[in-house]
């Protein structure tokens, strides 16, 4: 369901590309994390200034509005890599082999299609706020301290482009698994398959018996 799934690795070009992109994604994730952290520091500064010096932070809301896209969007590909984005795996959980890879492939193809349109749309959103002829190149500004908004808007198509690269890797990974009928393809998040679950359950049963033996019959 939710939560990360394992991504297998080996020495193939595909896997190396996967890990290469992962480095970029981790960096973006860390930047997002630091942005969250600075949200906290910003509040401390704002409250501290207000309480002690009667000098609240000018543009506090503007700063938050500029930080939020970093926090909310930058790591979108990082989460796609290991399948953190939630889904209903009622169906895929019960699929094996080629049938599973087919559904996974359709899913990532649809997401890529969506992303291409959203890169277009979010780029246009950025462009409307960007004007080479204006001071700070700004044609859209925050309300209180008139910071240019275009950098925050530019971040969206950039993050989505990284996601599109990630999706290309996953499309290739799933397509390869589909064509070759692979059991354990690299570079794509694995569904925790029935085998793993059965193993876990078997282990659990064993323990239960052990425990019963230890406790004796009631």
């Amino acid at each position: 369901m939710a939560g990360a799934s394992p991504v297998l690795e080996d020495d193939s070009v595909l896997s190396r590309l996967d890990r290469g992109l992962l480095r970029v994604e981790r960096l973006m994730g860390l930047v997002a994390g630091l942005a969250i952290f600075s949200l906290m520091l910003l509040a401390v500064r704002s409250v501290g200034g207000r309480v002690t010096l009667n000098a609240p932070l000018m543009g506090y809301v503007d700063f938050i509005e500029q930080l939020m896209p970093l926090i909310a969007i930058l790591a979108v590909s990082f989460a796609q890599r290991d399948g953190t984005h939630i889904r209903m795996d009622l169906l895929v959980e019960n699929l094996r082999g080629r049938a599973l890879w087919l559904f996974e492939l359709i899913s990532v193809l649809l997401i890529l299609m969506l992303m291409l349109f959203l890169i277009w749309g979010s780029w246009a959103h950025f462009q409307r706020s960007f004007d080479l002829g204006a001071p700070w190149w700004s044609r859209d500004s925050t309300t209180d301290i008139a910071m240019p908004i275009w950098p925050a808007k530019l971040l969206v198509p950039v993050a989505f482009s990284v996601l599109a690269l990630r999706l290309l890797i996953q499309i290739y990974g799933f397509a390869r698994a589909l064509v070759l009928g692979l059991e354990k393809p690299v570079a794509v998040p694995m569904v925790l398959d029935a085998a793993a679950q059965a193993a876990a359950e078997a282990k659990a049963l064993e323990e239960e018996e052990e425990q019963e033996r230890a406790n004796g019959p009631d």
Partner: protein
Amino acid sequence: MDPIEIGLWVTGGLLVMVLMGMRVAFAAALAGLVGLLLIFWSRRGFDPEHFGWAITVAAKTAGQVPHSKVASQSLSLIPTFILIGYLAYYAGLTKALFEAAKRWLAWLPGGLAVSTVFATAGFAAVSGASVATAAVFARIAIPEMLKIGYDKRFAAGVVAAGGTLASLIPPSAILVIYAIIVEQDVGKLLLAGFIPGAFSALVYGSLIVGIAMIFKNVGPPVTGFTWGQRFAALPPALPILAVVVIIIFFVYNPFGEKSWGTPTEGGAIGAFIVFCMALYKGMRWSQLKAALLETAKLTVMIFTIIWGVLIYVRFLGFADLPGAFSDWITSLSMSPMLILIMILLAYAVLGMFMDAIGMLLLTLPVVYPAVMALNGGETVSAADSAFGMSGTMCAIWFGILVVKMAEFCLITPPIGLNCFVVAGVRDDLSVQDVFKGVMPFFVADAFTIAGLIAFPQIVLWLPSLA
């Protein structure tokens, strides 16, 4: 096709994509994009010549949403709440809390389980996310329960259910999301969660005591703590209480009429205090980095659902589906209370298959206006209303009910996020085990929800004071 028809087709398509296992956030965004395309194209009579125009407008309209919807000060509460949870874990606060609860409450029948419930309730007051709470206590409380011979499934069920308290007891990410979707006061909603959350914890606790008295093998009481030991356990747990009190005082200053800050600031100050404690406990950069990465990943997961679903909601706005649904609901010749109960039952069914945040985001834009219309509108007075409460109060009451339903869904099969998380943390537990163990708590939740419907004052008393 008229807009309503387009709305129904696109919604059907969305369900198919979700069922076939597409990531919910992207499925919703794609449905919204296609829906916008159809709406715009329909306005040019589906003329093939105007398809290019329609797709351009749809892409650009959808492309606005990710930036413009997440750049919001009230949504900044969500990452802060998630960060607090992770930092509190590194600061060792959760363990201390559990230890104190154990020494004070474990003498009861099923005592360790009761302690777990109340420790999760305490932790809920600093944690905004149910899933994080369940994950943390799966690590801390389950081993202790197993050590003294608790039924494994039951122990897991207690933790999965206890985790849900985090979303009722403020701070709560999901209450913030509700407030944002329905444009209601975040502060009042958070306040409204207190008593229902405590009420839930009491119901869980009584249920455990009852079960332990009937089935003797479920979990023995733990006795023998001296009063000295009990009081000795308090100081390490005190910091968490201090954080709770600071956040609460911050937002609902009891000493004067003006609060010291906003919920956003209160959350951030709480995070900062916990951060300082974690530093004091010797947290290293590598641990902070891990916490930040985890926080970032969970945050982006939630926000992707938010903007994805809001693209779909933007399409609903153009199709005017909420208006149509609201008209339909108010035209039904059933009692409003019956309709409300049916809506909540529909949530229970839907929640079996969806995660809480996605479910709220997808349904509330349509359901909330209908419920408000059912009560008599946003501005209705208590006297003229169907449920005997003003429009604002109805928004709060329905919010708590819906969030409680959403929390209920976190522990129901087949997609109960908390149960998956508990099973994920513990190698020795399968998801099926956790679902079996959590089943008694369905009864408790049904009882709690019935209580909140029958006695709205449980929800509304505190916010009506504010």
